[in-house]
């Protein structure tokens, strides 16, 4: 049986390999991001020539200057693709990691902006990922902007969001707005519309998000899991059970 997380991993991997996007030769993955990390491993272990910089790798961490080196790498233009999320995400792909209510989050307080305000503008491709897909998260307009989805002309920016993957669907982002691209099993155009606070375009006949094929599932449950185990033991146990395949 295919786990929902496995489908999300495969959807992210397909976006990483999107032939219409510039090739991602170097992918960085931030803290506490098991599904983006697994997607990146899936791409690499499928035989693609890609470098992974995993910030929270316990052994063999590639950085000798901590997170500063990650941000310098992005500043140099050496990171092709990064993943971001948000407590709120709006239809202009703005991210809110601050909170709701008055600044700095007198309503719900989110953890904080981390490096999003920088990485979003310095990375040619950003894939947004947020499992919770509800009107509370996907809002018409974020209460506070941690990282801006689009920038006016003249502002130095290497790229915008490429897509947003949620627990219900995949949206593509064209630099101005979202388009519904595929529905996960059990979802309909109506169910997604009801769960989404922002406006997006919805083509006729939205396809279903494909299941990972057997060879991908085998990679996920074997080699990918093995790379993930030390950093994300709880995630691995939840998705793949206690025994290593």
């Amino acid at each position, binding site marked *: 049986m295919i786990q929902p997380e496995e489908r999300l991993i495969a959807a992210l991997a397909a976006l990483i390999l999107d032939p219409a996007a510039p090739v991602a030769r170097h992918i960085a993955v931030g803290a506490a991001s098991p599904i983006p990390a697994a997607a990146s491993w899936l791409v690499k272990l499928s035989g693609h020539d890609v470098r992974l910089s995993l910030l929270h790798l316990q052994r063999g961490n590639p950085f000798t200057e*901590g997170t*500063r080196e990650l*941000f310098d790498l992005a500043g140099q233009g050496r990171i092709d693709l990064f993943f971001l999320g948000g407590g709120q995400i709006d239809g202009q792909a703005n991210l809110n990691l601050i909170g709701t209510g008055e600044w700095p989050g007198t309503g719900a*307080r989110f953890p904080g*902006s981390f490096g999003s305000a*920088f990485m979003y503008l310095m990375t040619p491709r950003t894939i947004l990922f947020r499992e919770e897909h509800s009107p509370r998260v996907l809002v018409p307009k974020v209460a506070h902007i941690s990282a801006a989805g689009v920038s006016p002309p003249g502002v130095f920016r290497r790229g915008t969001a490429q897509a947003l993957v949620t627990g219900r669907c995949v949206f593509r982002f064209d630099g101005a707005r979202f388009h519904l691209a595929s529905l996960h099993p059990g979802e309909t155009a109506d169910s997604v519309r009801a769960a989404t606070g922002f406006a997006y375009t919805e083509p006729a006949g939205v396809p279903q998000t494909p299941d990972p094929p057997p060879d991908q599932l085998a990679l996920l449950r074997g080699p990918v899991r093995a790379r993930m185990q030390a950093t994300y*033991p709880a995630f691995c146990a939840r998705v793949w059970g206690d025994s290593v395949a």
Partner: protein
Amino acid sequence: MAFVALADLAARVPDGALLAIPPDNSLTPAAFARALVRRGVRGLRLLGVPVSGYVCDLLIGAGCVASLQTSAASIGETGLAPRFARALAAGTLQVTDATCPAIHTMLQAAEKGVPFMPLRGVLGSDLVPHRPDWKVVENPFAAGDPILLVPALSPEVAAFHAVCADDDGNVYVGRRRELATIAHASRRTLVTVERHYPGNLLEDEAMAAGTISGVYVDAIALAPRGAAPSGLLDEYAADAAHLAEYARAARSDEGFAAYLAQYVTLAEAVA
């Protein structure tokens, strides 16, 4: 440089000090923070470099903190920092939000002795209007190119937990070289270590690259397992169960008080 007792190290942080702290996973000074709680320090202005975790949450919960500048507050996989959230909601903690590379850059400006440094990105974030100490200017080298400038920030005190220290005050941080910048930028640096290193770390080619010179270090105390419940390089792993226990307990005032009594006030009172 003679080692001091952990309590004496904590006594060197004055009430109200601007104190820079690296987060979980980056040589965080957990035993030192517990000693600060026992010392009863008040009014600290904490700087998370660049984010804050268990140590800052503990200090906030114990009533030691007036303000916190950080790019995020979270503990382990839970993603929450309960005492931080509680103090923010109660209005007892002044929070200044930043973004990670801005904090690194403000410290690097202090490290170089310049009053400011530019940083790409960030424009369009609501951080900018909420940081009157940051400025957006036109790039003097290219027309029509706005860019953020952030000011130099020199913490009064930096504290972290390293692997070992020698008698010259040199401390070994291994691959976590970014700790050097915190030390360079801060007026005083207090360090706890797992153990004493016999000899001079800077005269050992194998150790020198991961060593911060004693020129930046003001005092050192022994604190075995001093980063726990966080991990320390290849010395020991993080204690995820303890961090989860903390995050659970700290959701309530009573739970936090019990945690303090069990792990901070009593357990290490003899240290």
